[in-house]
């Protein structure tokens, strides 16, 4: 459902993406790994038009993603996003965060959105937090609210931009658990992550990005256990054995 062809992106004279080709099918979980500054997040942000791109194309269901076109809002309601720093709305309660999109973007009535919101919060283990404000929650709880907020839009796919990188280590598990449940339920997911264990167990396919190109891709076990390229081998060695 997501089709990326020859994607290029410049920041000034610096080329961040040098021609990325990738497709994500419905129900597929794709993890993108790679060193910082390799362009992982930029790919994600091009998929829902948070960034414009300089060349190539991104299409969702055959519809071109262009952040200047009118269709971009509709595309964004189909492809939700979870951010590294949660980006919950601190002036609203947890429930208000969850129903914000359905009510104000999609025009759903508040009662039914709230009902669905309750079920979603329960599914991420936060049934008792609906009246709390985000700053009162731990990072792990906030990120799970963010996942519920993304799900509330009933999207066809969810993009995760390093969803556990801002969390204390002991809180990472709850968030990854919620994401694993989603994957098992058949959600289409593109996950930029440094969690190799998650990629290994949950992903259908892993892309290794370095220097703005896909260096290597494949099923997680093959790529993570038997990387073919020197850059992949080097990166994995550093990540898996940092000492």
């Amino acid at each position, binding site marked *: 459902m997501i089709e990326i062809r020859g994607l290029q992106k410049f920041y000034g004279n610096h080329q961040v993406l040098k021609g990325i080709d990738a497709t994500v099918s419905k129900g597929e979980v794709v993890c993108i790994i790679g060193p910082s500054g390799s362009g992982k997040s930029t790919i994600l942000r091009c998929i*829902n038009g948070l960034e414009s791109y300089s060349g190539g194309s991104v299409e969702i269901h055959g519809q071109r993603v262009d952040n200047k076109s009118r269709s971009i809002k509709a595309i*964004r309601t189909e492809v*939700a996003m979870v951010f590294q720093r949660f*980006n919950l709305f601190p002036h609203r309660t947890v429930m208000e965060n969850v129903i914000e*999109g359905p009510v*104000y*973007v999609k025009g759903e009535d508040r009662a039914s959105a709230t009902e669905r919101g309750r079920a979603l919060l329960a599914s991420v283990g936060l049934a008792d937090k609906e009246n709390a404000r985000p700053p009162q929650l731990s990072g792990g709880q906030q990120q799970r609210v963010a996942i519920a907020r993304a799900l509330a839009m009933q999207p066809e796919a969810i993009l995760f931009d390093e969803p556990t990188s801002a969390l204390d280590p002991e809180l990472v598990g709850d968030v990854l658990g919620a994401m694993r449940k989603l994957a098992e339920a058949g959600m289409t997911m593109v996950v930029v992550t440094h969690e190799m264990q998650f990629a290994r167990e949950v992903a259908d396919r892993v892309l290794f990005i370095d220097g703005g190109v896909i260096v290597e891709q494949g099923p997680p076990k093959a790529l993570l256990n038997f990387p073919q390229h020197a850059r992949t081998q080097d990166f994995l060695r550093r990540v898996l054995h940092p000492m």
Partner: protein
Amino acid sequence: MQQFLHNAREFLPILLQGAWLTIQVTLGSLALSTLLGLVWAAMRVSGIPLLANTAAAVINLLRGLPIIVLLFFLYFVMPDVGISLSAVQAGILGLGIAYSAYQAENFRAGIEAVDHGQSEAACAMGMGWWLTMRRVVLPQAVKIVLPPYGNIMIMMLKDSSQASTITVAELALQGKLIATSTFQNATVFTLVALIYLVMCVPLILLVRHFEKRGRK
């Protein structure tokens, strides 16, 4: 002291009339400057270069003009092009326009102080510019903007005295008139100062309230 109280009883009714006009001018120009300030600020953060640059130019122009010059223009020059304003109208208009520049910069700073991730999250769920502003950015910006807004209110109350230069008989001008006709300078200007202070106290308390709320 006896003499002071006696004089005060005589002068106060006139001074209070002036104070009432001061309040009217302040409230009028406050409303106008807030409205105009919101317009300039919205233009500046609109992301549309033509609007943003126009607003920036207007703000710089207004900041570079002394209020008194603006008042003279409105009251003495505008009649030449066929627009005659009463002194109070010109006063409210002049102060309102002059202060809209400071209001705009305050509003803009508040809007820009809201974490960029907030508008990004709103954008990512399909919100447009206006919905993002209304539902996400402005409610958070208000908290940041209110304490300086209170300070601007205090400054406007005091600067309303500049309207005296175009014959608005507000508190400062009434004081000056009484002083020149009675030579009771000390009594009159002490009273004038006290009345300004009394009017400022509620505003100062309001600012303190805003600051407390903003910290929550």
